[in-house]
């Protein structure tokens, strides 16, 4: 079972590394969207610092949302998804492998690039560290919950907008706590509560989302 998890994870990572140009897209998108705000609103450090947590978190949310498509789309189109569903291994484990790969390919790069954006947005150092922690705890949830949405919409033509419609409301708690943690840290206050909340949601998502995703995949396959 662990083997099946590992093999699928490696396969997805290998596939992604072989089409590297796509790999960078969510990352560029993330940086680009954040860059728009100083241009659209104001570049004064004070104002930037006020909106930084929200702007960075919303952009991260959108970057993950746009990349969710590749979680199941290709496998659905070439029939590999059927083969995964006919695996003697529990589908949940395979889903978890695909979500892990997705996080390594989108969530983790976002976490790594985030300090740069923190500097762009004049965040103090403590806040940047908290930004990294909050993204580290929050982005896996975005991948996990997003997987439910993609597996429901993967067979729908032009399902992109639909996906955002059904997934974004579910992302709200992560957004609130993630952005707030950074905000509070910028004021030099403790953020343990917010990070613990994100951790708790991650634990919940980790235990329930793969189950929901595998049910959703079976529903999608049955049409």
């Amino acid at each position, binding site marked *: 079972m662990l083997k099946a998890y590992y093999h699928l994870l490696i396969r997805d990572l290998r596939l992604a590394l072989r089409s590297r140009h796509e790999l960078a897209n969510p990352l560029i998108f993330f940086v680009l969207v954040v860059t728009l705000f100083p241009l659209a609103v104001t570049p004064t450090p004070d104002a930037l610092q006020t909106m930084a947590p929200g702007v960075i978190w919303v952009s991260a949310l959108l970057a993950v949302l746009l990349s969710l498509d590749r979680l199941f789309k290709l496998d659905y189109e070439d029939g590999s998804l059927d083969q995964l569903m006919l695996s003697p291994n529990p589908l949940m484990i395979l889903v978890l492998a695909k979500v892990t790969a997705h996080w390594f390919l989108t969530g983790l790069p976002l976490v790594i690039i985030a300090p740069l954006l923190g500097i762009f947005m004049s965040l103090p150092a403590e806040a940047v560290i908290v930004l990294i922690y909050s993204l580290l705890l929050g982005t896996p949830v975005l991948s996990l919950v997003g997987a439910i949405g993609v597996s429901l919409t993967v*067979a729908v033509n032009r399902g992109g907008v639909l996906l955002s419609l059904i997934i974004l409301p579910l992302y*709200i708690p992560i957004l609130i706590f993630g952005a707030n943690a950074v905000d509070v840290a910028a004021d030099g206050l403790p953020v343990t509560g917010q990070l613990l909340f994100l951790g708790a949601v991650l634990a919940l998502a980790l235990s329930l989302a793969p189950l929901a995703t595998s049910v959703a995949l079976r529903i999608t396959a049955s049409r």
Partner: protein
Amino acid sequence: MWHWIQRFSSPKHFYGMSAPLIKWFSVSALLLGVYGLYLGLFVAPTDYQQGESYRIIFIHVPAAWMSMFVYMVMAVSSGIGIIWQIRLADMVAAASAPIGASFAFVALVTGSLWGKPMWGAYWVWDARLTSELILLFLYLGYMALQSAIEDQRSADKASGLLAIVGVVNIPIIHYSVEWWNTLHQGATVTKFDKPSMHIDMLIPLLLMAVAFKLFYAALVLVRTRNEALYRDRNRRWVRELVERL
């Protein structure tokens, strides 16, 4: 037992059985609603803080309650539909969504109308209003997914699963929005939860709540009957029904 449930939950049986219920539910919803509104608008005392404008709660609060309640009904019947493959449960869920969305919409509109005299603005990012708005989005997502999938059976199952995921999320969303709100607005007086309510206000409120529930019951029966007719339009029982007309 199982056999009995199967027979009882067949669309045909439901169709025959629901007709008299609709009559009872709608008549009693109407009577209670008129009486409740009368008590609420004319009998209940004027609020010493908010004057007459508070009377909108007799619509606002029951609508907000119903929007939550209908989502629960949707999630539970979707669960029944997915686990036990009972078609009627799927139909009830699909029929409930637009009703629930309308309740959420009514709650939002009345809430913002109430906000104008209270806060001087039609929209304030109050915790309850924000939660209600997110709930409306959840409804809209459900309906969008339901209509995007052509195959009826997988549309039901897919949107049903979404409703269940939503129900797991609602407490988390609710809690985080509450928390977000106290953080940003400090200890402003929330007009929605009063520590105690005058009994003359409470009675019409409860009457209205019951009236809304009966109204929903009547409406969901009508809509589920329509769903049943539409979905089974090629089955024999519907054809026979049409021929008798």
